């Protein structure tokens, strides 16, 4: 009886219908716009408001930008060229380009030095920033970079950076030798060895230094413009990292006196605005130093900003230390590691990894805060604009162009760093969510 079925018509279609195209309202641009721009009354209203906002911003900015004048030597000429039309006097940027970047006092013939140092910064930073993509050997250059950059920017005899480097190298060798016995021996031995090297090296360098070094010396107070912001930012962040780690460990310490010293220091620094610390650097610090001591304003500012950054970084790292599972500490103890070994080999590498995004945030904030030095009469980028450039007869009254430029410069750097930090966060995410 099976053949009866052969004649019955099946209820089920045996071939698939060709897919019909979705209605036009549900495809491509139209669908995207419906979902993303005109989603209900509120969505449409928001879109219209945003469109209007974008339009009014562009309508204000574009003529100013496109109609800009780039090659006059002062504001009066610029106004003549514009003949009353809207347009920016961007010639202030081209005319004062060097001052904006390097300040007023850096010797003009030596501009290549900070520029080169700036380019090398990327070379030096690359192996740290992208550890998986680049060979580890490049890290040697990163280690050398601070000395190279110092020599390039400040100039003078090459012996001083070499001596400084030698101190670190000697210290490291001593550390390696003694650390097997005890961490403290290695650590203090290294410091002692480094100090002795610097002291001896200083004397030798003083004797050997030629009167005419290859790179002429530039005094610290001749630094200015955006270069000063970059110097303050990079120097203070790099110096504050180790101090921040020490403070964070100190705050976690079981020794009450050490702990309280760290807590008071951190809370004090975090409790006051940076500007008051800069006032201290500028007007008060001199009273706390031995009579006759007189060191550079830039150095005093570096000390203060470093302290400031260290306190914030310490808090970030403390967060990292606290976030580590308790088991890691216990595992380190159960292996019989002492405090220094446990921290160095187990705890800190993990805690620092967790803290990286926070540290980058602090670094960006700090870099932005370097503009505050303009308030204590240093000619950084903002100081240059507020001081010499706006005060000059030539460029009195050009505000928008200068502030837009300053904002853009900072935006590029800070946005770049924060994008990198987000990329890194994704790279480091070892949990599989």
């Amino acid at each position, binding site marked *: 009886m099976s053949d009866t079925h052969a004649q019955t018509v099946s209820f089920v279609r045996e071939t698939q219908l060709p897919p019909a195209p979705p209605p036009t309202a549900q495809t491509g641009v139209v669908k995207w716009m419906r979902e993303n721009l005109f989603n209900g009354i509120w969505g449409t209203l928001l879109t219209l408001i945003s469109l209007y906002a974008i339009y009014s911003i562009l309508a204000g900015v574009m003529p100013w930008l496109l109609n800009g004048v780039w090659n006059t030597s002062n504001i009066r000429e610029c106004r003549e060229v514009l003949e009353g039309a809207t347009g920016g006097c961007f010639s202030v940027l081209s005319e004062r380009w060097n001052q904006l970047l390097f300040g007023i006092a850096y010797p003009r013939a030596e501009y290549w030095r900070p520029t080169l140092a700036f380019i090398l910064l990327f070379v030096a930073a690359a192996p740290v920033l992208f550890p998986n993509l680049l060979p580890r050997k490049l890290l040697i250059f990163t280690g050398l970079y601070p000395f190279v950059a110092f020599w390039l920017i400040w100039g003078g005899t090459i012996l001083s950076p070499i001596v400084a480097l030698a101190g670190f190298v000697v210290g490291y060798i001593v550390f390696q030798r003694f650390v097997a016995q005890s961490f403290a021996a290695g650590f203090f031995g290294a410091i002692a060895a480094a100090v002795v090297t610097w002291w001896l090296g200083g004397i030798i360098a003083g004797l050997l230094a030629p009167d005419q070094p290859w790179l002429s010396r530039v005094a610290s107070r001749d630094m200015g413009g955006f270069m000063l912001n970059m110097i303050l930012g990079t120097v203070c962040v790099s110096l504050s990292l180790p101090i921040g780690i020490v403070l964070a460990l100190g705050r976690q310490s079981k020794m009450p006196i050490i702990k309280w010293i760290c807590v008071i220091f951190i809370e004090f620094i975090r409790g006051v605005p940076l500007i008051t610390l800069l006032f201290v650097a500028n007007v008060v610090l001199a009273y706390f130093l031995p009579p006759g001591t*007189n060191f550079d304003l830039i150095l005093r500012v570096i000390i203060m900003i470093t302290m400031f950054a260290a306190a914030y970084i310490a808090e970030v790292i403390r967060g990292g230390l606290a976030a580590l599972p308790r088991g890691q500490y216990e595992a380190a103890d159960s292996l019989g590691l002492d405090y220094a070994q446990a921290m160095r080999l187990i705890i800190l590498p993990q805690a620092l990894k967790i803290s990286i995004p926070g540290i980058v945030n602090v670094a960006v904030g700090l870099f932005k805060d370097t503009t505050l030095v303009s308030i204590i009469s240093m000619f950084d980028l903002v100081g240059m604009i507020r001081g010499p450039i706006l005060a000059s007869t030539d460029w009195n009254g050009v505000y928008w162009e200068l502030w837009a430029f300053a904002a853009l410069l900072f935006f590029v750097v800070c946005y770049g760093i924060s994008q990198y930090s987000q990329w890194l966060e994704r790279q480091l995410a070892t949990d599989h969510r």
Partner: protein
Amino acid sequence: MKKSVFFGALTVAGLAAGAAAAGTLDDVKARGKLNCGVATGLVGFAAPDANGEWDGFDVAVCRAVAAAVLNDANAVEFVPTTPKTRFTALASGELDMLARNTTWTFSRDVDLKFEFVGINYYDGQGFMVPKDLGVSSATELDGATVCIQTGTTTELNLADFFRTNNISYEPVPIETNAEAQQQYLAGACDVYTTDASGLAATRATFEDPSAHVLLPEIISKEPLGPLVRHGDNDWGDVVRWTLNALISGEELGITSTNVAELSSGTNNPEINRLLGTEGTLGEMLGLDAEWAKRAIMAGGNYGEIFAKNIGEETPIGLARGLNAQWTDGGLLYSPPFR
């Protein structure tokens, strides 16, 4: 010993103490540079140009001192200071001298422990208003909004003036001259008040200077002059007499063009003493005989410096007024070089 600025200072910051304490004059000579505090930017008095060269009336005093002491008018490290930072910078030894249109007052001299070595500009606080405001006297300013540069004597003078005249005002404190100018031009204040010379210098940079007037009232005495720290009289003498040399130079007719010729000897014994061909004035100061000659050669005598930076031929266009020589009815009067 040449130490690296940075690492040296970082490692041995504390140890480096005790070296100084010698006289400022010796320090300056040893350093080969004069640290001179100036304003962060006031056209005509102290402002860096597009090449970063400092120029102006106050700057010229620094250069004259550098020329007298170091034989090089360019051996000056100009340290920009704000009204707030200037005194501590000088007191802490960061500066050797301050030439920053600073008013000589009792409390600065006595309480803050500074020594004003003389007066290089006799000034007074004035008011600038837009012409179309129709104000002709400061007493008509009842209820006006006034822009003032903060951290100077002008705030106190202003408060006193309005108080004694029993009229009210709204102060708008502003940090730099450039910003005060911006506010004033935008109409955020009706009046801008500062030293009359500063007003003239500011007005000179306007697009249309003739649309603004300086009111006739001068409400204070503002003797501006260079200053040094209390207690180092030798150094104070050097700066004081360099300034006097510039003033005497004008009185005696010594200019930057004829100083070389005059220094070979003249019939006027005072010129000879000043230029070092007679007597040992330079030695007494701890300098060599030709110090005053170099000071005058650096930028000219007082009159030349005035004419070049702020005089009537410049955009700033200040008349000599009180700052004429006493022989011309002004107040400039240098003690004799004897």
